[in-house]
């Protein structure tokens, strides 16, 4: 881990930003987790309402009521209680719903998910997420927009530089490790690139100082 103790490598940050552009990932530099959460709220404000997919047995469509306009939802399962409460206050002031549990009930989709990356790789603009808990895993799969906070000090030049971390993650008794490099995409129809097939349409990375 070349940067965990020292200052963040600016060349790696720049490389990440450059490579992110090529894969339709939006990047922003922020101050700490607080900055990342503020950015999350900004993204949520701008997000268009999710188109709910008809799924039998899923909770949310049943709960949604035409008379009362449905709230935009943010899922942030990975936060500590204190961070979650702080975010919840701000979110409800802005009229958003905030969830952290039972993500399986939201399989029809929702607006925004927030995750914190374990580390990142500049060469490919990749965020690496380690999620043993189902809610943390599903959040980034079901949302239309995924915002990931990545600590600049945990940014590596190449995946090989992070081999030790990957091996440690895989040596755990159970783990689901995701390399994510952009929004979900397909070129399966006439090789035309289209974003948002099964996963998010939009992918944001907040690079934290």
């Amino acid at each position: 881990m070349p940067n965990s103790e020292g200052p963040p490598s600016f060349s790696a940050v720049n490389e990440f930003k450059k490579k992110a552009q090529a894969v339709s990932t939006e990047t922003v530099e922020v101050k700490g987790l607080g900055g990342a959460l503020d950015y999350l709220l900004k993204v949520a404000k701008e997000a268009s309402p999710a188109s709910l997919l008809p799924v039998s047995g899923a909770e949310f469509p049943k709960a949604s009521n035409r008379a009362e306009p449905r709230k935009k939802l943010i899922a942030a399962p990975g936060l500590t209680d204190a961070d979650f409460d702080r975010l919840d206050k701000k979110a409800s002031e802005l009229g958003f719903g905030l969830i952290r549990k039972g993500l399986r009930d939201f399989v029809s989709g929702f607006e925004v998910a927030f995750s914190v990356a374990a580390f990142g790789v500049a060469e490919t603009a990749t965020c690496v997420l380690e999620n043993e808990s189902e809610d943390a895993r599903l959040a980034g799969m079901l949302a239309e927009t995924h915002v990931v906070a990545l600590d600049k000090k945990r940014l590596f030049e190449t995946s090989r530089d992070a081999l030790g971390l990957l091996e440690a993650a895989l040596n755990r008794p159970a783990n689901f490790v995701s390399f994510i490099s952009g929004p979900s995409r397909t070129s399966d129809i006439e090789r035309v690139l289209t974003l948002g097939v099964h996963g998010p349409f939009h992918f944001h990375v907040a690079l934290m100082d």
Partner: protein
Amino acid sequence: MNGQERDGRDYPAASSKKYHKSLNQALEDSFLRKTLDKFAVQYRSSREAIFSGLAEKELIREVALAKDGALSRIGELYGEFAQKAREKGLIVHRAQTAQEAREIISNIARENGAKKVIKSKSMTAEEIDLNRALEGAGLEVVETDLGEWIIQLRDEPPSHMVLPAIHLSRFQVAEEFAKLTAGEPDTDIGKLVKVARRELRAKFAEADLGVTGANFAVAASGAIGLCTNEGNARLTTNLPRIHVALIGLDKLVPTAAEALSILRVLPRNATAQPITTYVSWLTGIVDYGAAADKGKIVHAVFLDNGRLDLIKDPKCREVLRCVRCGACANVCPVFRLVGGHRMGYVYIGAIGLILTYFLHGREKAKNLINNCVGCEACKDVCAAGIDLSGIISEIRARINEEDGAPITSSLLSAVMGNRDLFHALLKYAKYAQKPAVTGSFVRHLPEIVAGSHGFRALPAIANRSFRETWPQLEAQMAPKLGQSKGPRVAVMAGCAHDFIYPEQLVEAVKLLLIKEAKVSFPTDQSCCGLPLQALGQREASLKTAKTNLRAFAAKDLDYVVSLCPSCANFMKNRYPLLFAHDPDLLEMAQNLSARVIDFSSLVKNVLKFSPDDFTPGSLKVAYHSPCHLGRGLGVHQEPRQLIALAGQYLKTPEEEVCCGFGGSYSLKFPEISAALMKRKLESIDESGAEVLVTDCPGCVLQLRGGEEQRKRAKAAAQAGGQAKAKDYAQEKSLKIQHISEFLSENIKKATK
């Protein structure tokens, strides 16, 4: 697969007759042709861009080493994986056959009371025809990769390993989707993708069993790695309670380090992406939230299905390095013309031809395996550095040995394997063709060989072969040769130059003399052996190769030059492999290999022709790079530099694409050979070049023959029917030259 047809679907290469019919249909499919043409061109440039600045060959070598290392101790790795994964709660199975794997997975479904299965794309599942087995067991099976889902709805096999629905248009997709949504077909691609998102999300939510393949199985941690762009594998592994990963034994790697090496090449080679959008690594049993009392269940089913036998096959085991990037199809000129349904049984492209033989048997492979022009484009880009084109000819030889060779190729090999008989027959042919010759072409072909072969005019056999011309040439040169101080160069004529185009060789010898090379022509040389190898005639090929080892054994030779890069490539790169079993012959083969050089490299790098030697002409000159020179011998710059020295070189976009000759290939697959040739000539037309230079007699034969035929067709059209020879002699046409003729024509008079 015990030879049964998959899903009762038609297999285009089931018989030779059926195969040709299907190939012709594909050639007439204008959507397919346009799509694959565009794809070939875009893939080439985006691949180049994504590898720029990286040591591509080095990265590929790393993949090859990682894979070879893993394959050499596959049993051990399997044991390690199984132990680690079991410790973490997985259930690990090993299936020896496709049938066994199907039963294991059907049983898992039955024992857990599963009703609905979702799948993320897996070629291994295609290999064992899993869907049919599960459907037979009463399960609903839904593919979730968009392309794979589309072809499932149409009940078709994939036509590409990475882009399974590349053969379909948005209109065909819309039509299929309209049946599901009961609405008007909307052909907007963005909307079509949304239909898939909506329809499939419901399937994800309902499914109780998810099937995936695996790109890696990491022994050290019992983890599997999955690459996708759509994110469907993530939902497939997470939403249903049961996850079954079907994994070829070849997917085992010792540690995550090897997986990362592969990951650096695989997405770049597959889709020119630095990495796939998602790479998911799964280990152990993660929590499952739907029912607290019933936890997640994960099965890893390892598939042998012939893989372990293949590991024991020293000539072909490297096939198992394949990481399924699909690149060998993307660059294949035959794939570009006819698409994937005609380039493999399940796996597609060069690797498809090969795996059809090893995994699905000789019957399925025997027509397919011949449909390779031998251009080596696949080998050149393979993510794992597999000698794909070499293994394809090895398989041809095996099929011949197992099945008995077709009578025509046996006859040919009997003749070519016997030098005296071969030369005597050629002499006879020269007289026999007399009445049919116009200029340097055969005017009309006997009925039996015409028909679909009439796409190019065939060259006449020369009046005097090079070997007949040599004594006189040698006598003329004697005074000069005696005092020359240059390198000692022996000429390997090769059949085409010896008997069809000796004049090209004569011009070459004159050029060599200008720079005082000591030229010799060992007359006991023979055919290089490549044509026999291509026909799968291993013994005859070895025999002629041995003749040449002796003919060129003289210790004092500095170079052995061939104007035919196919001969040069075969002698340089294959001879040492042919004689690997015999130390004495191997040493001779290595000595010869070290001396073999192609004509352009000899002229440019050794004899050092310079601008002072030429009076450049004013015509625009395009270049066609022979496959065995560019990719085979790795010679790219020299011929282009020489053309620029002696004329006005005009770069054209498809210089390195095969002209379609491929020796006997053009006789076996005339329809494809003709289409490749036509495309080549058209691309030269589009460039505005007036001369086309190449450095291979086979390419000259193919392209001149094609140009002559175009001329005849044009004259015939103007004359309203059969044109006379004198009519088409008037037609203006593209001048096609071997580089020796071109250089000789533009050499400074004083120098001569």
